[in-house]
């Protein structure tokens, strides 16, 4: 779409100035070599070479050692906790983020713009601050924790606490993905469905949900990807007990502090591959959406 847009603009420019209509003419704008060169050099130095270094170090371990340290029982437990809590939090956000987006797009109420701005708080608030604040709230004598404790619900220092932190971190991904698409859902379709006798929930399930599903899935995948790698907001509330509440990013840090470079490298490689997989998934969802829109 980007390329289509820019070529469209190019055509406009060509129409405005007929002498530029010749195709394949070189742009008169200077600086391609300089900006492209700097972009590629900086990208390589900061991102690509360091990330490749991780893969090369992992490759240097050899297959057997990689499997032994990267998929040790403790590492497997950490992946289970990281992926499980991230999945749970993304699911909760999928429901409540959609609800929040719906309320913001469809209804008017006092303080709406202010609250809408608050949705971006998790993007702006440093993760460590979120982490200690949530821990203070959910610890057994905290504002919220003291009411849960008598009910036998332990949140802080358990996977539930990790999930709560990831709900906080992931919420804006869903809301901001769904909001613009929801605002664009054609009123005609809805009205047509309603006037043909459909119930409101049928309209939601059959008319609205199919349209916003790609955006919802994209938001879900973004929140999931962020949740799997999240560290700062989680480690305070997690309790960090191996096999019980130790997330994979924390295990990397722990191994590093014990000079277990092989284990840290292997676990980090697994996480990095997981994030590449998520990235592919997100790109796949978007390609699918484009195809669907084109059809």
């Amino acid at each position, binding site marked *: 779409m980007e390329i289509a*847009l*820019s*070529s469209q603009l190019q055509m406009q*420019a060509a129409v405005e100035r007929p002498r530029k209509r010749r195709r394949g003419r070189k*742009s008169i*704008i*200077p*600086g*391609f070599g*300089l*900006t*492209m060169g700097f*972009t590629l050099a900086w990208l390589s130095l*900061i991102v690509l*070479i*360091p*990330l490749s*270094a991780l893969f090369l170090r992992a490759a240097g371990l050899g297959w057997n050692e990689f499997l032994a340290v990267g998929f040790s029982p403790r590492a497997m437990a950490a992946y289970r906790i990281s992926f499980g809590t991230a999945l749970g939090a993304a699911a909760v956000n999928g429901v*409540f983020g959609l*609800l*929040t987006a719906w309320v*913001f*797009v*469809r*209804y008017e109420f006092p303080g709406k713009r202010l609250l809408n*701005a*608050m949705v*971006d*708080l998790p*993007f*702006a*608030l*440093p*993760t*460590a*601050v979120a982490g*200690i*604040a949530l821990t203070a*709230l959910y610890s057994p004598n905290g*504002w919220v924790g003291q009411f849960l404790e008598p009910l036998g619900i332990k949140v802080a220092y358990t996977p539930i606490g990790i999930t709560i932190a990831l*709900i*906080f971190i992931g919420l804006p991904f869903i809301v*901001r993905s769904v*909001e*613009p698409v929801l605002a664009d859902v054609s*009123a005609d379709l809805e*009205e047509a469905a309603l006037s043909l006798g459909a119930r*409101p929930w049928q309209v939601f399930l059959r008319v609205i949900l199919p349209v916003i599903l790609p955006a919802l899935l994209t938001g879900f995948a973004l929140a999931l990807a962020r949740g*799997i*790698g999240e560290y700062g907001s989680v480690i*305070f509330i997690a309790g960090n007990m191996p096999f019980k509440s130790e997330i994979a*990013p924390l295990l*990397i*840090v722990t191994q*590093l502090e014990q000079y277990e470079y092989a284990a840290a*490298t292997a676990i980090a490689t697994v996480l*990095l591959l997981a*994030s*590449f997989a998520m*990235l592919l998934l997100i790109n796949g969802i978007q390609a699918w959406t484009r195809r669907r829109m084109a059809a």
Partner: protein
Amino acid sequence: MSARLPHRSARARRALIALALAFIGFFLVLPLVAVFAEALAKGLATYGTALVEPDAVSAIKLTLLVAAISVPLNVVFGLCAAWAVAKFDFRGKSVLVTLIDLPFSVSPVVAGLVYVLLFGAQGWFGPWLVDHGVRIIFAVPGIVLATILVTFPFVARELIPLMQEQGRADEEAALALGATGFKTFLRVTLPNIRWGLLYGVLLCNARAMGEFGAVSVVSGHLRGLTNTMPLHVEILYNEYNFVAAFAVASLLALLALVTLVLKTSLEWKFGYGRGSAK
């Protein structure tokens, strides 16, 4: 807009609004309130003392220094990348844009670790750096590098779509009238993108000052030397010095609030960044 679904279910509407408000209040507003409440739990005097204590002051200074280095570098990169992507056609453009976005999906801990593997004592360049007396890991350069990596896409991803949307006609006109390339950038392009640039800088700065995971891995947590504000919060918290921890945290929360206010006013005024702020 609000009149699409039938209003016979006003009760359902009120219930939905209440549910959404409860969710936001519980998950977003309450933690924010808790930061300030805990920070002021022992009164203003204790709060103030925690902020002027030498280790806190040096953490604040280091955080400002790291942001002052990494944000401008990301601005230069963002401008270059957006210029190359938006003003020219070349193969592999979408691959380049994906690669620029890549750091967003990398765990902060992994972002820190890759630099330890390169520059740490056990790293590829470790022995050479030791021989030449250069410290990167457990020192300020490592913190800056890790911060640049995690904030890498912020400015570029705001500018690329914006400059693509604005096209090339303005620049081509200026150049045809005889302006130099640099002058065209300064007088034509920059005024067109200034609010989008500011938007990107705001988000980049907030992340740079607040980054925890990546910086934590490379910093070594040397009090007064390599402790940024978020790391200082962690140390104080782990020492059960909760009031001081929340006092420093409240400064970071204020930074977040200021960022949100400026960001929101840019969105309301100019419509920038909506939905692209990831």
